[in-house]
């Protein structure tokens, strides 16, 4: 690192009250290079990033903290305001929340200019459009006038990048800039970050996914519990990881890992035999010619697929391709315009709710955000008792044993029984959701983005759990995700959706090995891979 460092951090510690979120970490950010901070959720990555802008919100101490040549430890707020967005800018973690939903994105971007460059209004508008174009925002003029709620996830992320770029900063901090984006968009964002690096700016990239940073970062620092456990060049870290934790992170990346192979060392070994399925039985789920339109917009168009018993069908597609709509129609939550759904050979949808109530127990659902699907007044135990008692009671003692079994099945401790789901971690919540879905012993589980909100390490444990449950119970999964690597790891067969249609389906190896459609090829090429 011969160049002049833009940011130098030595022995940085940040604490909130008595708890230390970041402990004695050191790194430098250099122009033209990208440093990646990688680590599990809660390891202190965002706090580190925020303290580089004087916005940590906690108590900061360091032997050295210099930002663009200034001693950031004793900087008054006014001077910070000069640095923020001007010399150093940050792309915040959550694109949905980082843009004011009540203001047009163009204005949000323009505010950065208002503070720093005293441009006349027309020039400012010009500049906003220019930045939006540079991040390849479609129809920049229209989008600038829209609010973040009117933009898709990818557009929001790009708007956020544009906002960070508006002030023409020398250092860009990208906090999970690609999380929750589908692979095409991830590729796009990564290429934009690369561009920044090539323009000679310093980039600090933050992620929990080593695969995501592999192609961009020059250096990687692995964080855990507020400390940097291992740092080095990308080749060193990926090729020859020294620390156990780094290896664990690398292993948790699902792409290229065959089915029923544990991703996490913590998971129980997957040894249970696959129960024998009668070959001539009806498929678990059979969907024919399902269509749904919202107004003029055809969200789902004549899709058909079959899910054999005990198997997993993965549905993959970019955001807005109609995956969730399909899942909702399959679950009987949305009336299809056309087509039909059969569950275990019996007619399921479209039908009147009372007609299929008996069949309901055969199909469960897992959502991306499990918290939203729990009644906020219920504790863990009550949720499970309610599910077991078919809604007649949430406290009945007779189910205590079954509840304990369910918890064991999803590897949760019975200590959690009295807790409210809000007091659980993301991974624990998803396990609870799975336990609840398993309570009526369903034949089919519909999983809509079940691991998209989890970081790779947690995702690995949940995916392992799902694998084990399928082996033990023979439940069929309709597994929906935008993440190709997850789908590749989990599915026996894959259906690729694009603009409401299934454009390609077949065995996983076949689709991933030899894609037939141009679109599929495009998707796969954008997929970040470690292996």
């Amino acid at each position, binding site marked *: 690192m011969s160049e002049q460092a833009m940011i130098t951090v030595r022995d940085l510690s940040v604490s909130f009250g008595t708890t230390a979120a970041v402990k004695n970490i050191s790194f430098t950010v250099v122009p033209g290079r990208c440093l990646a901070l990688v680590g599990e959720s809660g390891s202190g990555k965002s706090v580190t990033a*925020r303290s580089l*802008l004087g*916005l940590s919100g906690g108590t900061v101490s360091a032997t050295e903290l210099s930002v663009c040549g200034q001693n950031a430890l004793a900087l008054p*707020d006014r001077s910070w*305001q*000069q*640095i*923020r*967005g*001007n010399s150093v*800018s*940050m792309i*915040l*973690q*959550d694109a949905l*929340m*980082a*843009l*004011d*939903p*009540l*203001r047009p994105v163009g204005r*949000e971007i323009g*505010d*950065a200019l208002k*503070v*720093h460059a005293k441009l006349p209004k027309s020039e400012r508008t010009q500049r906003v459009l220019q930045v939006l174009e540079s991040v390849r925002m479609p129809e920049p003029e229209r989008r600038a006038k829209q*609010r973040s*709620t*009117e933009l898709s996830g990818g557009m929001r992320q790009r708007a*956020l990048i544009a*906002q*960070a770029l*508006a*002030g023409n900063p020398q250092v860009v901090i990208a906090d999970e800039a690609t999380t929750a984006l589908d692979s095409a968009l991830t590729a796009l964002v990564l290429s934009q970050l690369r561009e920044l690096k090539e323009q000679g700016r310093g980039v600090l990239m933050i992620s929990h996914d080593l695969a995501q940073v592999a192609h961009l970062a020059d250096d990687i620092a692995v964080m855990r519990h507020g400390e940097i456990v291992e740092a080095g060049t990308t080749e060193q870290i990926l090729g020859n990881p020294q620390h156990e934790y780094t290896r664990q992170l690398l292993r948790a990346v699902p792409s290229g890992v065959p089915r029923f192979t544990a991703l996490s060392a913590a998971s129980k070994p997957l040894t249970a035999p696959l129960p024998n399925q009668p070959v001539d039985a009806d498929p678990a789920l059979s969907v024919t010619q399902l269509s749904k339109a919202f107004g003029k917009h055809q969200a789902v168009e004549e899709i058909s697929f079959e899910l054999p018993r005990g198997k997993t069908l993965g549905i993959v597609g970019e955001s807005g391709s109609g995956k969730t709509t399909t899942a909702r129609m399959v679950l009987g939550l949305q009336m299809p315009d056309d087509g039909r759904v059969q569950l275990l050979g019996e007619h399921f949808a479209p039908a009147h709710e009372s007609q299929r109530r008996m069949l309901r127990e055969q199909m469960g659902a897992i959502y991306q955000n499990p918290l939203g699907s729990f009644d906020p007044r219920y504790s863990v135990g009550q949720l499970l008792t309610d599910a077991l008692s078919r809604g007649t009671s949430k406290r009945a003692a007779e189910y205590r044993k079954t509840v304990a079994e369910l918890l064991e099945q999803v590897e949760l401790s019975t200590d959690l029984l009295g807790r409210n789901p809000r007091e659980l971690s993301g991974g624990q919540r998803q396990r609870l959701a799975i336990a609840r879905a398993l309570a009526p012993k369903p034949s089919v589980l519909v999983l809509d983005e079940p691991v998209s909100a989890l970081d790779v390490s947690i995702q690995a444990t949940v995916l392992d759990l799902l694998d084990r449950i399928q082996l033990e119970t023979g439940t069929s999964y309709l597994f929906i995700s935008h993440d190709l690597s997850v789908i590749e790891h989990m599915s026996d067969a894959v259906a690729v959706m694009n603009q409401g249609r299934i454009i390609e389906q077949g065995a996983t190896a076949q689709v991933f090995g030899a894609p037939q459609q141009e679109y599929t090829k495009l998707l796969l090429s954008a997929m970040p891979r470690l292996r």
Partner: protein
Amino acid sequence: MGTIAWAGRKAGGALVVLWLVATTIFIAIRLIPGDPAEAIMGGPGSQASAEALAAARAEYGLDQPLALQYLMYLGKLATLDFGTSYSLKQPVTQIMGEVLPNTLWLSLLALGAAWLLALCFSALAMRVNRVGAVIGNILEIIAAAVPHFWLGAVLIMLFSSVLGWLPAVDNGTAKGLALPVLTLALPLAGFLTQLMRDSLSEAMSSQFALAARARGESKLAVFWRHGLRHAALPALSLTGWAFSSLLSGAVVVEAIFARPGLGRSLLSAVLARDIPMVTGIALFSALVYIVVMAITEGIERAINPAGASS
């Protein structure tokens, strides 16, 4: 929903609401004991003779069957004929024209003052330390809990009798408006602040506020550009209600500060069973309420086009 469709729907809804109000008043006033004819002749203790009463009944159509009276009543209202006040013997529209502007002014000023005060309270809460915030908190809760008539009396004692700074009664000047407006605005400001407080602190600790800070905006700028918008939404959605409650509060305030206005007319009209007057006031204030509702909804739509459609 397009703006024109929205406006159309609003107008249609408004007509239905006005009709419902008119009907409610018609029914309610006939349920009240007492002969409307007596009211016409000057109240229940009037010295009108039986013939005079009969004449009055005939003149005002009170001898007709109720259904027919109702239709006649609606017919008149439809042609914007509100009739003549029983007690003041003047066209209702003319009386309303005299008193309505006073009350509207008072209420609107109070609404504006309440918003201003609420903003100041909130901005203060953002800047001062913990002790200050607690004191502010208590003050705003108390403000929301004082009855108008007591506050008015205390303000008069303080600012007119003791300090002599402000006039106690309306004298047509801006100064004369100060105390009545304050009396109406203070409790409302307390209420609005309470509504704004939570969403304000939520907005100020949100990711987008952090994003704004990260691009170099000062804390105050974030308060103005982001915090306020979010804080205003819940309070805005209750502004229509607040305005309606201001009209009721105006009755008390107008009595205390001897101001002419809708409030006093309303009180005396109901006491005198002055049906045309009561109807007129009810419909006018319903109309004002509807307009204020529409305006606030319009502002809401402007601030938050996504949220207002539901």
